């Protein structure tokens, strides 16, 4: 059975949804081996066992967190070689994609990012599915190298425990970091204010506001909180300073594929569409009936968001009462 190394980055006190998704994928392809950077708590070790991990490679060396990206790639390279892995899976955040890229150079391997699925094909080996050109094409790709590196997007699979759990054996790894790994020092690190909402690229529902909210994200945020959704924004709204840049959905922001995307006061320029058109359902509210967003909306509402949203909010509260 092939070994699949799954990168678990600083799990803290519990395994996150992203890590559980990666392990669920890995189990379908071979034997998952967790490479954990950072402290490994007993609780996380137990969770790894529940997700089918029999072997954990762990490093808590300070360099992993004092320097940017490369030390984590070198740790993964050591882990992959230790277990003779055929595949390494990472998340698809900006940081994790770059770790995947550097790891690929270290292992002289092919790297595929933004993957939405991975399947093991008896003839063709490991096939990776991804969407390209802003979701307008699906491609199936594979690597020619002995080991493949794949960065997987969130929401590609429903996390599922293995059924039978066993205690994972933990082995501590000491990485001999290179001089190159210590070139970019993290001089300071500041936590950004937590919104309490789900992370935009992982959320099941996204409510996004644009120029039409005219500086008032109140109704967008209220609807989002009722639905347990993340709040997104168009570039016009972030450039205007109405909301933090990290909320931006689109070609120069984040790409999201939630179950439901509610677009509010956004005309739907091509760059914005590129970030959200792979959502399962799209609902759009806009005053201008000619808005391009209506060309792709499952439900389009031509109307004033400041009357439509409050009415929807009241109706949801009424039905839940």
């Amino acid at each position, binding site marked *: 059975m092939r070994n699949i190394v799954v990168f678990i980055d600083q799990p803290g006190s519990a395994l996150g949804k992203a890590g559980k998704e990666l392990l669920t994928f890995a189990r379908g392809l071979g034997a998952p081996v967790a490479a954990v950077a950072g402290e490994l708590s007993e609780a996380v070790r137990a969770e790894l066992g529940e997700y089918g991990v029999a072997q954990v490679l762990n490093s808590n060396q300070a360099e992993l967190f004092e320097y940017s990206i490369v030390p984590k790639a070198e740790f993964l390279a050591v882990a992959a070689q230790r277990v003779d892995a055929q595949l390494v899976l990472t998340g698809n955040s900006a940081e994790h994609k770059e770790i995947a890229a550097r790891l*690929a150079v270290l292992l002289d391997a092919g790297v595929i990012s933004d993957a939405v699925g991975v399947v093991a094909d008896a003839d063709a080996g490991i096939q990776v599915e991804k969407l390209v050109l802003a979701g307008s094409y699906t491609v199936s790709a594979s690597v020619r190298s002995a080991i493949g590196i794949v960065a997987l997007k969130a929401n590609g699979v429903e996390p599922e425990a293995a059924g039978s759990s066993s205690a994972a054996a933990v082995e501590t790894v000491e990485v001999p970091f290179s001089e190159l790994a210590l070139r970019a020092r993290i001089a300071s690190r500041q936590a950004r204010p937590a919104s309490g909402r789900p992370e935009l690229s992982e959320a099941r529902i996204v409510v996004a506001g644009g120029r039409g909210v005219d500086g008032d994200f109140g109704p967008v945020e209220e609807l989002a909180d009722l639905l347990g959704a993340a709040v997104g924004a168009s570039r016009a709204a972030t450039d205007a300073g109405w909301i933090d840049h990290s909320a931006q959905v689109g070609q120069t922001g984040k790409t999201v594929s939630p179950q439901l995307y509610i677009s509010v006061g956004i005309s739907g320029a091509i760059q914005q569409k590129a970030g959200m058109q792979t959502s399962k359902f799209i609902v759009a509210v806009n005053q201008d009936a000619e808005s391009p967003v209506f060309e792709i909306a499952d*439900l389009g509402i031509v109307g004033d968001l400041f009357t439509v949203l409050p009415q929807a909010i009241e109706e949801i509260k009424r039905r839940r009462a």
Partner: protein
Amino acid sequence: MTIVVLVKYVPDAQFDRHLDGARHTIDRAESILSELDEYPLEAALQLAEARGGASAGNRIIAVTMGPESASAAVKKALQIGAYEGVHLSDPALAGSDVAGTSKALAALIDSLGPVDLVLTGMASTDGETSLVPAQLAARLGFGQATFAAALELDGDLAVVRRDGDAFSEVIEVQLPAVISVTDQINDPRYPNFKGIMAAKKRKIEVLTLAGIGLDPATVGASGAQAVVARSQPVPARGAGVLITDSGDAGIALVDFLADQKLL
């Protein structure tokens, strides 16, 4: 100082973009300079100008690789203000993956003599992987700092602010370095008449793989480590129901959510 800015000629996202059915490569008709490459170019211009510009010996070299038409990206960069332009053009580059692209760019940059800084956009707007800057830094043996929302130089130290979802970090990286920048870092300038006239006098140096000493077998389709076996257009999304609010559209919205079991 010598700053290399990577520029890419990409299909204009305002039009429908296509993959070539047989080779799964991007059809490059109706292409433009990638919008995200204007930000590193502006950053380079500001850094060089603060140090006396071209007359003080600073160099800003706009570099691209790709087919003959890709020269247009370098030309545009020269019009905006880059001091020099280099185009790596070789039929063997066709079909390069991330590994091949970063190998070719590393060999090209090595051939330019000492370079202090390589600036790139946060992603190309065609491949959209953001993987090339990291691999390029690895192959050049340079430091790396990516997604810079702010960049300052302090002697031979680059100080970069990077805003992630959970954290904002300040990264200090020794030069030489590869730094990618986001669209938050500056407001790019437009080419003006003076720049357009000056660009006409500047020659774009065209290099081949032989010219930079790189074996063609290591790049392009023959050297690719990641290959696409199949590609398929996703059926276009159609419009669904469009209603005009006559006083109960908010209820209709909730009905829709209930029908899709999203409440």
